[in-house]
């Protein structure tokens, strides 16, 4: 069979269903030496805030079994520098761009969306409502359905692009948060962010990260991501979901697509292999061909509810 890898994500046609996840691809510039940015499903940028952020002190990362902890602290040049230098580069490279936004208040998010409304090089917005590396838990908007919905409302009032809300699995009722942001107007969801974790240097009796806690990513969290995508896709059928969390191979991507994701994002794997995003897409094409499936959109219907 001839496989068609393109997918429709919230009205935007993507070349492949495999995106580069936020925070694991910079703003694309460093990766352009490893792959062609126009080959990717999309580049989800490192999260951008209104003002530049310096990020956390070091150490910022710690290796853990089948994964890693990070506490970068959202270091980024701010939205004006992003628009002046990073966005033109991505546009010239032919990349489909998902701009990841982060703020300390719903108003911050609304102002970011307004600033990017006139930037045609931004195809979608992703709201980072769930970064664990913030100073106060109150900035993890996705921990509370009401706060998350308020951010989405403010963004939707200003945005011209479709809006993805990136949620965290670190809640007792993920479906309630997902329903709240969809009711508030989110066009789609990104599931999941890193999980809040911590590691201790037992020989010095101190935390391994300067920020003490950090976000756990990598293959260690993939089963959590699969569960979350399955749970939300089942509860809210028809809502586009970008599944992410520990995807390193085509089989990992297929897991998320089978349980209802429209597309997947490759994150930590890009640290190990800079070409992971394109290699996962190529593997997915072989997987579909081997199983006689023409398009990834057909996968959820093939998923059997029982083992």
């Amino acid at each position, binding site marked *: 069979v001839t496989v068609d890898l393109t997918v429709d994500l919230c009205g935007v046609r993507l070349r492949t269903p495999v995106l580069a996840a936020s*925070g*694991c*691809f*910079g703003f694309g510039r*460093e*990766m352009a030496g*490893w792959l062609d940015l126009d080959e990717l499903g999309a580049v989800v940028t*490192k999260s951008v805030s209104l003002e530049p952020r*310096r*990020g956390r*002190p*070091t*150490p*910022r*990362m*710690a290796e853990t079994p089948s994964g*890693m902890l*990070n506490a*970068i602290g959202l*270091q980024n040049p701010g939205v004006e520098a992003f628009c002046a230098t990073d966005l033109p580069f991505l546009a010239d490279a032919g990349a489909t761009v998902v701009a990841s936004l982060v703020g300390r208040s719903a108003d911050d998010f609304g102002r970011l969306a307004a600033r990017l409304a006139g930037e045609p090089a931004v195809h979608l917005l992703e709201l980072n409502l769930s970064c664990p590396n913030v100073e106060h838990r109150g900035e993890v908007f996705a921990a509370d359905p009401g706060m998350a919905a308020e951010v989405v409302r403010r963004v939707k009032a200003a945005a011209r692009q479709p809006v993805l809300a990136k949620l965290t699995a670190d809640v007792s009722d993920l479906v309630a948060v997902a329903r709240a942001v969809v009711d508030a107007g989110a066009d789609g969801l990104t599931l999941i962010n890193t999980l809040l974790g911590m590691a201790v*240097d037992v*020989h*010095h*009796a*101190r935390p391994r990260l*300067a920020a003490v806690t950090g976000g756990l990513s990598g293959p260690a969290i993939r089963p959590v991501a699969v569960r979350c995508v399955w749970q939300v896709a089942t509860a809210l059928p028809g809502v586009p979901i970008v599944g992410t969390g520990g995807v390193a191979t085509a089989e990992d991507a297929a897991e998320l697509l089978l349980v209802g994701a429209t597309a997947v994002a490759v994150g*930590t794997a*890009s*640290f190990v292999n*800079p070409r992971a995003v394109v290699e996962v897409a190529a593997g997915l094409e072989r997987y579909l061909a081997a199983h006689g499936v023409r398009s990834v959109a057909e996968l959820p219907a093939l998923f059997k509810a029982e083992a």
Partner: protein
Amino acid sequence: VAGQHGVPCQVAVEELMACGTGICFSCVVPVGDPARPGEPARMARSCLEGPVFDGAAIAWGELGHPPASTGGLGLSPQDPLAADAAP
């Protein structure tokens, strides 16, 4: 020592790296402009801009953890470089 004798000093420094390609922002080192001592240091990626920097540009007091070879349970001396840099 180099400063006392007016000799340029370059130093090789690095931090824990996740990617080594400039995308993860783990390996940052605080780097300032020696000509503008009042300005806060920026977090420069040692994998891309380093690992060799102008010694006078490193904000030594802001460097992270002490080396893993120092200290033990209950004994964690400060990074000797950071201690030297303290006023």
